[in-house]
Structures are given as C-alpha cells and as structure tokens.
C-alpha cells in the first residue's frame, strides 16, 4: 500500500476530533459514494460500502495528519470496495480481463444495444470496463483528480497513471463503438 499512512485505529474520538473529521472528511462523502458506486456497479451496495468506509476513516482519523483529505478518504473507500468485491464477487476480480465476455448482472441484452440515450450508453460502456480501468477514469473524469491523487488512491506508481488512463480511454471508446461480443473476441 502506498500513499498514506492510514494510522492506527481507535474506536473513540473526542468531540474536537469529530469536529475536525466533519470538517475535513465528511465533505467528501459524495466523492466516496461516487467511487464506490462505480467500483461496485450497484447503488445499494455502494451506499453500504461507502458508509463502512467512512466509519473506517473515522476510526483511522488519528492517523491522518493533514494533506489531501479527499485522496486519503478515497483510498480507504477503494480498499473497502476491493475487500467487499473479494468477499462478495470474487469472480469479478479474478476474471477481470474477461469481463467484457460477461456483461454484469442487471445488464440485459437490450440495454447493451447501443441506445440513443447518451448517458445510458456511457454508463453501460463504463461498467463493462475492468475495475482497474474504470476507477482511473472515474477518478479523472468524474472526480477531477490529478495524477498524483490517482496514484495515491489506487496505489499505482505515478509514472504509470498516464498510460493507465490512455488504455482505459481506448477501452472505453471501443466499448462505446463496438458491440460487446465483438469486443471480447477481438481484444482477448
């Protein structure tokens, strides 16, 4: 794990620390929910996981000594998401690069057809990407994170953020322009 020292956990913070937590970390609840929603591809699950991550952040808050609070909390959110995925959908992580063969639960064949609706198309395309590509895109394009922040959150070396984004964007573009079946057979 790179980036931040999550510090030691303590179950109970006093009122001052809570005030500081509310001031520094709670404003990033939207960011936490957004990242969790895109990593888990499910709104309900993401709310549970975002909540769990926020409470973990709260327990680890003594280990946060200032700096980029958003990146700090998003790192915890991401870790919590991956732990959740390992436990609840291990197949998804193991077969990361086969994902395009198995459009996720809830994605009916009709919805994968290129719809007129741009938003829906984008959502589907983004969801077909492997989590490691999906997360850099979400962090960069939706969350507006810098490369430095992305590196800290995802624990990838800063020098590879650019190429990770390049690949993720290529994949997204292909997912948008090609039928999923063709995509899978060609890419793999």
């Amino acid at each position, binding site marked *: 794990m790179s980036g931040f020292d999550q510090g030691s956990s303590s*179950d109970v913070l006093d009122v001052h620390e809570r005030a500081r937590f509310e001031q520094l970390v709670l404003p990033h609840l939207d960011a936490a929910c957004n990242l969790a929603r895109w990593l888990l591809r499910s709104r309900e699950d993401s709310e549970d996981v975002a909540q769990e991550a926020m409470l973990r952040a709260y327990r680890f808050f003594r280990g946060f000594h200032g700096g980029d609070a958003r990146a700090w909390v998003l790192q915890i959110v991401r870790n919590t998401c991956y732990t959740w995925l390992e436990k609840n959908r291990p197949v998804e992580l193991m077969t990361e690069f086969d994902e395009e063969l198995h459009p996720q639960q809830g994605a009916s064949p009709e919805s994968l057809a290129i719809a007129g609706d741009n938003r829906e198309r984008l959502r589907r395309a983004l969801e077909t990407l492997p989590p490691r590509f999906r997360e850099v895109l979400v962090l960069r394009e939706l969350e507006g994170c810098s490369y430095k922040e992305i590196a800290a959150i995802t624990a990838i070396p800063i020098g590879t953020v650019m190429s990770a984004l*390049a690949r993720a964007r290529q994949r997204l573009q292909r997912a948008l322009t090609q039928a999923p079946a063709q995509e899978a057979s060609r890419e793999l």
Partner: protein
Amino acid sequence: MSCDYARTALHGYLDGELDAARSAEFERHLENCRECTNTLAEQESLRSSLQRSGLYEQAPLSLRKTIRAELERGTSSPAKRWIPDWRWITAAASIVVVATIAWYAWPRPGTGAGTAAAPFTAAEMIDAHIRSLQPGHLTDIASTDQHTVKPWFNGKLDFAPPVKDFADEGFPLVGGRLDVLAGRNVGVLVYARRKHIINVFVLPTKEPDTPIHPPGLRQGYQWFHWRRQGMEYCAVSDVSLADLHELAQLIYQ
C-alpha cells in the same frame, strides 16, 4: 493506433499533466501528426460527454444522516469524559475562588457592582443554549438586520450588547433574546451557520479584556469565552470548532 504519442503523452497533454517542455514537444508533434490530431479531438469529445453526462453519483441524504448518527455513537461522550474534570474544577473553584482557573474553564463572570459572586457555570450556559433550541424559544426578536435587533434590547437590559450581522461572512444574525443566567439578565445574539445555531451570550463585566480562551466542551456543545471592552462573551454551539472560532474572532474584532 500506431503513433506512440497517441498512446501516452497525448493523455498527459489532455489532462494538463505534462511539464512545459513535454507539452511544447507534443504540440510540435501535433502539427504534423494527423492521427494524434484526430485522437485528441475524439478524446476531448469523450471527456466532455462524460463530464456532461450526469454520471456522478451523489450521496443520498439518508446516508449522510446515517453516518452522522454513527459518528455520534462513535464519539466519546463529552459529558462522561468531562464529569471528573468538571468536578475537579468545581472543587477547585470553591477553594481557590479567584480567577486562576479562568484560563481553563468557564471563568467567573464579572460580578458587576459589588454583587455577590454569581458564578454562571458552563452547565447553566449549556442548559440555556439547549433550552433556546426548543421550538419557539430561540429568539424574542427575529432579525431582518442588526438595526432591528439592537434597538430591541433598549430598555430590556441595563447595558447595550454590541450587535453586528455577519451574514456576508456566512454567519447571518437570526435574532436576539433575553435570558437569565444565574439570576442575571443576559443578552443573547443568535447566529446561524448553515443548519446550526450559535448563541452568543453577552453581559457586562468590569474585568479586563482577555483574548479568546481555549474552547470548552460539555454535552457535545463547545464554547469560546472572552472579555472585551467591558463585555463578557460566550459563543456556544454544536457547529464545528473552526466555524465557532471564526465567529468569535469576527465579534472580537
């Protein structure tokens, strides 16, 4: 895709993450590379669709509430933590009497012209704050601006609390109220900070000015106390400490 630039530097350029030299280098390359020109245009349009798509998922209000409630449970109870300290302070106060503990906790108020000591304790002040939050108890006079609140105190108190609206700084004056603390009439200025209420208790004192004392806390409420120009102030709220301190400083100036 054959051009190496299109696979790497183009993205750094798109994201504004190239340093000046590499950025200039890429721009020179762009002049001669049709592939990169096209890719850049495509990527820019993809980015703008992503950003305009409304795909950002915000936290629902219910989750916000749940988390706050959870934090509440995970926070050490200030009442519990404070009881021993407070007892100690009370005991010390009865022995030491004078204001040596003023720095530490709620100082003894200026007792006015020879009145017997009328210590108004943190407990009394927090009670008054909580009471004010009950429906219909917050203000006696609602504020349209400081000019409606200031004259309202005239004749109701034997002093004129300084009234200022800090709406521009994010602390709108909600109104004013009379309160009685330890048998003394006290003027209260009510400010809002987002959804939080801040009560500023004001009463005259003959004690010298002090800086804003370190914060106190009890039952989850925090306060700042100071004396300035013959007035004793105490700002109390459940708002964040930083916000409360900001208001204290605004009033102090």
